[in-house]
Each structure stands twice: as C-alpha cells, then as structure tokens.
C-alpha cells in the first residue's frame, strides 16, 4: 500500500490537523507528517508546491486520493474502517450534529488565535462546554457520545478540550461527562503512548 501522508502546519497539538493524526493512531495507520509554517508565507508556498486546492490544510494523501476538510476526512476513515460511527440513522445524525457543533466551536477558536477577545473563555468556551456536556450526558452507560461505543466525534471533542486548555482557556471545572470522555480517550491503547509523549513535549 502507498504511504499515507498528512500535510498540516507545524502547530504541535493545536488545530484541525492534530485530530486527523490522533485518529490515524487510533486506527493503527502509519503516516508521514509534512509540516508547513503557519504564517503569511503559506499562500505563496501553497502556490509554488500546489499542496491544497482550497488553500487550507489539513490534506491527507491516502488510497491514492487527496482528501481535504478534516471532518469529512474522519468520516472517510471511519467508513474505511467500518467502525467509529453510529449504527442507526439517528445515531449517525447525533455524531454528525455534535461534529457540526464542534466545527462551530473551531471557527471561534481560530478567530481567537488571531484576534484575542477578552471574553473568549466567559462566552465561547462556556457556551460550548455546556453544549458538549449536554450531549455527553445523554447516554451515561459509557464515556463516549454513544455510551460505550467510541466514534470519530469523540476525538474531535477531546481535541477541542485539549486546545482550549493549551491556550489557557479550559473550562473550570470541567464537567463530569467531559472529564470521563477525556480520561477514556487518554487511556485508549492505540493513542495512549502518543498522547503521553505529546504531553511531555509541550
């Protein structure tokens, strides 16, 4: 099989690309990282190297395809694995809807990086913390959105919590359902080592 390559910015554990990395670890898929500098030089680098059609990253090369847009990439990988999604139409919808809410969170998080807003934590973080908590309280049979069954959205929400923590804006205290999610992802066999190394590299 051809090599799997992830193109993203050198942002450490921040940003959209890291969710794809985490998920590739979970799926036990080896990949190579190609890192770009996240600054005003990116558009001209992209033009010269023809990396991204949309001008944005991540881009994942896999199965002889170039895949764009991080949530659609997660869903492609889930279907490929035949796992990590809901089973019924309504379960699939729930996973999709929470990813869409995560996406709205991400838009605000990115805006915060460039234009710091003093009430980011009090408004944005608080609002999404409540929404995520609400959804993760639905099925208390396990730590994931769908109870004991992990799905792709759990990795996205895990990274949202992590990225808010990284920029010093973690919800305080973190709600019980989200604490459980965090602990469960941290303990997953395929990502445990990766996440532990990532934490010490910070």
């Amino acid at each position, binding site marked *: 099989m051809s090599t799997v390559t992830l193109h993203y910015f050198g942002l450490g554990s921040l940003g959209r690309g890291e969710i794809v990395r985490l998920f590739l670890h979970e799926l036990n898929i080896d990949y190579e990282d190609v890192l770009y500098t996240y600054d005003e030089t990116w558009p001209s680098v992209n033009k010269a190297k023809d990396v991204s059609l949309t001008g944005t990253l991540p881009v994942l090369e896999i199965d002889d395809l170039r895949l764009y847009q991080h949530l*659609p990439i997660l869903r492609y990988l889930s279907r490929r694995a035949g796992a990590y999604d809901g089973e019924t139409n309504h379960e*699939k*919808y729930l996973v999709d809807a929470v990813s869409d809410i995560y996406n709205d969170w991400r838009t605000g998080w990115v805006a915060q990086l460039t234009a710091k807003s003093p009430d980011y934590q009090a408004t944005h973080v608080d609002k999404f913390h409540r929404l995520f908590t609400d959804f993760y309280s639905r099925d208390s049979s396990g730590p994931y959105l769908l109870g004991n069954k992990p799905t792709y959205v759990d990795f996205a929400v895990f990274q949202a919590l992590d990225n808010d923590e990284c920029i010093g804006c973690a919800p305080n205290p973190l709600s019980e359902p989200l604490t459980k999610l965090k602990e469960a992802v941290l303990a997953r066999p395929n990502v445990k080592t990766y996440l532990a190394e990532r934490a010490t590299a910070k």
Partner: protein
Amino acid sequence: MAAETIPTLHYFDLGTLGRGEVIRLFLRDAGIEFKDIRHRYGTWSVESDKFKQQGITRTGKLPALIINGTILNQHVPILRYLSRDLGRYDGETNHKKFQVDAVADNYIDWRAQWVANIGNPSDDYKNKFLPMYYAAVAKYYSENNGPYLLGDKITYADFAVYQSVDNDERIGALPTELPAEIVKLREAIEGRPNIAAYIKENRPNKA
C-alpha cells in the same frame, strides 16, 4: 395523527437567505410536504430562550426540523439524516460519499464567511475568498462531468452549492465570471420538476 406526521421546519423570515432555505429546497425536491414556520429574525433573541426550553434548539440557533418524532438541528447534518432516511441524495462508495461531504464542508466554510459579509461584503470576501471557493468547488464538479457533483445523480451538496450562488447574488457579491461547472449546476437545479416553479417565483427580477 396525520397532521403530526408532517415534518415541521422552524427557520427565519429571510426569504431564500440563510441556512434554512437549503432544507426547504431539499424537502421540496424530495416531494416531502412540511410545515414551514418562519420566525421574525429581528425578535429571535427574545424568543430563543423559549425554544431552548422546549428543546427545539439546544444551541439557540435555527434551523430545526421536527420529523419522525425527533428534533434535528444543524442544517448539513439534517440534510444527511434526510438522505439516509430516503436512501437517496448521497454517493454510494466511500470515495463518492467523501466527495459530497467535502463539498458540503467547503459550503459550511463559505456560509460562515457569507454571514460575516451580508451587510457590506468586503473586498477580501469578493475578490479573494469567493473566487477561491467557487474554483475549489468547480474542481470537484469537473471530476464527474456534471451537471451535478456526482454526474447525473443529484446529492444533498448540490442544493447547498446552489444556495451559495443564490445568496451571494442577493447580497451583490457574486463574481461576474463563474466557473462553467457552477453555471451548469445552476441551470440543472432550476430545471428540476419539483422545484423549478418555486425557484422562479422567488428569483429577483433580472432587469
């Protein structure tokens, strides 16, 4: 009982602007009758708490679709729910499903920019963002020769892309030159039997 089986769409009185219209168009195309409730956009912040309490929207935002006894929010996930329910309007292989999903995600990024540019579209939006968006989307369309994203089979993303063209035109931001693939899509959608008359009725007069 019969009345309750008709889905209800809650959105704003914004004509064809905004996220809700994508769902209206989709439902009409699919031949699904629905109750079309249009809230006043101007007074929504007062009403939104009430709707949150009723569970119609957890986020305080619309659209919300009540169907099969469940409440659905987030407009693109709603389109995918409906597509799965109907067993139509999506790709069949993993790669085709991805193409539809990726274009829909481009549209979601477009929508966030559009919302920020309704009042007075910025030069950045008009001259940089939009040409890039339409070119990227057209590239996907060119892979299957149109008129729809996957060729002659329509999918949920086609309605979303169509609405981006419509909504950009209505705020006076639409690039004068659109990629041929996008023009072709537009014509194909406007000729669809279930929605052609509806679209025509609502199109601004082209003087």
